[in-house]
């Protein structure tokens, strides 16, 4: 028995060994990749690090072509004579064309290889992907850092969802909720990529519809996945003067009443006023008026966004999850995205001013 144990321990050493070794100096870090698909052929742009001199880290881009992500990587490897290491992948950009196929099937390798990182961010870009990969002068930072920082900041401000590869995969697999990814556009001058909002997916693939940044902020609130700062601005008319009012959502609750073919979504929002030059927030009447005004405006905006979601047949808010759980007859009516598009969804927002800053 003792001998057997000794032998099995000795053999266990053979299970792993130097052949697993991956010396870091023999790899090159790839923090940013972009994929495009044209007529079935995949084109991958890899931004990788090169150390030209001690203390000098710079980035280059190499293009690979092939049928799959892995083959594209091998093709690129051959061109630069170094092994690309995807374990530090931070941002994956995909073209609109590419997003119209199931991303999960394309990025199978990310889940299959243990070294790969599932916390990479995903984003959809408009047009040719090549132009997004190069560092432009306006960026200031290297391309990978630029995208990473922009996506992180935007997620903190609730403009885009904080979705990485891992969460995207659960959303793609979940029939009750649709994926929406950050949508990046070239600026009008063509100099700098800009975060334009979100790309809406419908049943695993990109629907072709996008929302701008204000609308995507509302989707994030509807889905109750706000970032750290959620700020709205409206113009308030008082007499013949307009005052801008900026409010931040402090806390809010949602309540969905789901009936047959109708969903009443009620949101109670507690706001803290960040900017309001008209002042007099100690006056109850002003506050009441303001609350009514904000409730009306927000209800209007929220409903508009719901309409757009229904147009795109994209349930990014995730009504489907609740429906599937508590209203099976509604869920079983057919494909959820179709049912969702036909539903009568009405959002009501009740705003309440809870904080008014330190002025009063």
């Amino acid at each position: 028995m003792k001998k057997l144990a000794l032998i099995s321990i000795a053999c266990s050493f053979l299970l792993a060994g130097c052949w697993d070794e991956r010396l870091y100096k023999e790899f090159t870090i790839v923090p940013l990749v972009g994929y495009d698909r044209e007529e079935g052929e995949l084109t991958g742009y890899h931004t990788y690090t090169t150390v030209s001199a001690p203390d000098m880290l710079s980035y280059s881009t190499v293009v690979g072509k092939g049928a799959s992500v892995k083959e594209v990587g091998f093709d690129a490897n051959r061109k630069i004579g170094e092994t690309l290491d995807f374990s530090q992948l931070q941002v994956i950009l995909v073209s609109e064309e590419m997003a119209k196929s199931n991303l999960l099937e394309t990025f199978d390798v990310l889940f299959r290889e243990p070294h790969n990182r599932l916390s990479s961010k995903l984003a959809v870009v408009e047009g040719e992907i090549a132009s997004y990969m190069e560092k432009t002068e306006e960026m200031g930072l290297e391309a990978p850092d630029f995208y990473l920082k922009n996506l992180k900041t935007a997620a903190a401000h609730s403009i885009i969802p904080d979705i990485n590869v891992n969460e995207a995969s659960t959303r793609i697999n979940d029939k009750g909720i649709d994926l929406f990814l950050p949508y990046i556009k070239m600026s009008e001058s063509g100099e700098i990529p800009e975060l334009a909002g979100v790309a809406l997916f419908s049943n695993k693939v990109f629907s072709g519809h996008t929302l701008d940044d204000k609308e995507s902020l509302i989707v994030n609130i509807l889905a109750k996945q706000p970032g750290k700062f959620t700020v709205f601005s409206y113009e308030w008319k008082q007499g013949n003067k307009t005052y801008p009012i900026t409010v931040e959502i402090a806390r809010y609750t949602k309540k969905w009443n789901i009936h047959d073919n109708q969903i009443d979504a009620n949101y109670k929002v507690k706001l803290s006023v960040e900017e309001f030059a008209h002042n007099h927030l100690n006056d109850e009447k002003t506050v009441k008026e303001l609350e009514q005004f904000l409730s009306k405006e927000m209800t209007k905006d929220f409903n508009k966004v719901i309409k757009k979601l229904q147009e795109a047949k994209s349930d990014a808010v995730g009504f489907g999850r609740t429906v599937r759980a508590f209203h099976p007859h509604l869920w079983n009516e057919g494909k959820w995205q179709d049912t969702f598009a036909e539903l009568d969804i009405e959002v009501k927002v009740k705003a309440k001013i809870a904080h008014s800053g330190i002025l009063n």
Partner: protein
Amino acid sequence: MDEVQSMDSLILSIKNIFHNSTDLVVREVSWKDGSALVCFYNTITESGEVNRQIEILRHRSIADLPDWGNTAASSVEAFSQSKLVENVTNGFVAIFFPYPNLLLTITMPSFETRSTQEPSNELVIRGKHEGFVESVDKNISLIRKSLGVPDLVVQDLRLGEDTNTKVTYVYIESIADPEVIKEVETRLEHIHASKIMGLGQIEDYLEDSVWTPFPQWLTTERPDRVVANILEGKVAVFMNHSPAALVAPVTFFSFYESPDDFNGRVLVGSFFRLLRIISFFIAVFLPAFYIALTGFHPEILPYELSKKVKLAVEFIPYRPMVEALIVELFIEVIREATIRLPAPIGPTIGIVGGLVIGDAIVNAGLVSNLMVIVVAMTAISSFVVPNVEMNTTVRILRFPFMLAASFFGFFGIAIGTLILFIHMMNQSSLNQPYLSPVIPFDPSRFKNVFFRLPYFKSRKQQQTFTHGAPKQKGGGKT
């Protein structure tokens, strides 16, 4: 001795016993009832003091006091040659009266000892600044000074046929576990060596297992440490002419306790004790972790850090293991050299070795700057242990881990850790479990290991070990 022998031939024959050493003094002195022979080594006994003592004894004998020979410093017994030899070699003065055939011994050795100073390898900030010296009597006196109790038992025995070394063990009768004392006695009595040169040799005989890197006896030169330990029921072993004491049974965690903990504030003491235990893990695992990281698992690095690591390792010609060995070797050489260097130039060489060569070796591109940070951090962490023995143990331990990491990555470290802990669990100090309050788990003493708790809270008598059956051979319940 024959009465026929004249005094002169007696002197000659005594000188013969000691092989005519020139520092041996054998003189005839006149006494009330005739002559006597005074015999001592003038190198280890003060001659002037001998004269004074003899004068006192002479007065007492003239005054015809009963038992005039027995005073606080002297005693009378029947003469035998072995007694004479033993007394003289130990620095006593022997006065031989041939006619009643008696031997009078005056206890007054004056060996050269240094004054008590703070031991340089166990410095503390608060607490006593005295240390043991190379005399067992002075050392015991340092302990008795702190422990005015009749319970404090001092026992000695002589070991080594050639060196005739006095070995003393000290314990507190009412607290110490009788089984432990018995075990120490048995082990000491079973030492059969012709020469006993140092405490390390005795430690070899007393240890449960010689082949482990972990010390099972706590070596200390601080009286306060010994006192605190014997108050917990441990036994301390001294050797004459050695400025250190061995304390057992100890646990692994005893080596991480310092008198500073108990003299400082509760929170501060707890913090530093935790820090020391953390530093054990840093010292053993940090280089292995770094090697595994750069050789096997770079994907666990955060993105920002991965760029720095990439920059650092890009132009290094060696694999991480070789790189680590170069710096480790370098630091060990500096450390070994600075011990031997004379005090005035020691720091200079340390600076030249550490800073200048350390900087140059990175600039030359032989090793990465991260590796220098890792190894330097490890070296400093290993010196946090308030005990020299454990410090060397920790320094040795990290090499097998580095090897395992370079072969198998984190898997190797995991297997190595497993083996290390199995090994530690199998260790014992005087048959008591080495990882005691943790394994076997003892909740009442567990928190004492990681925190220095306030004094007034502990009501029970502190004992290091709860009694249990002695360790079974081949592992098993302890």
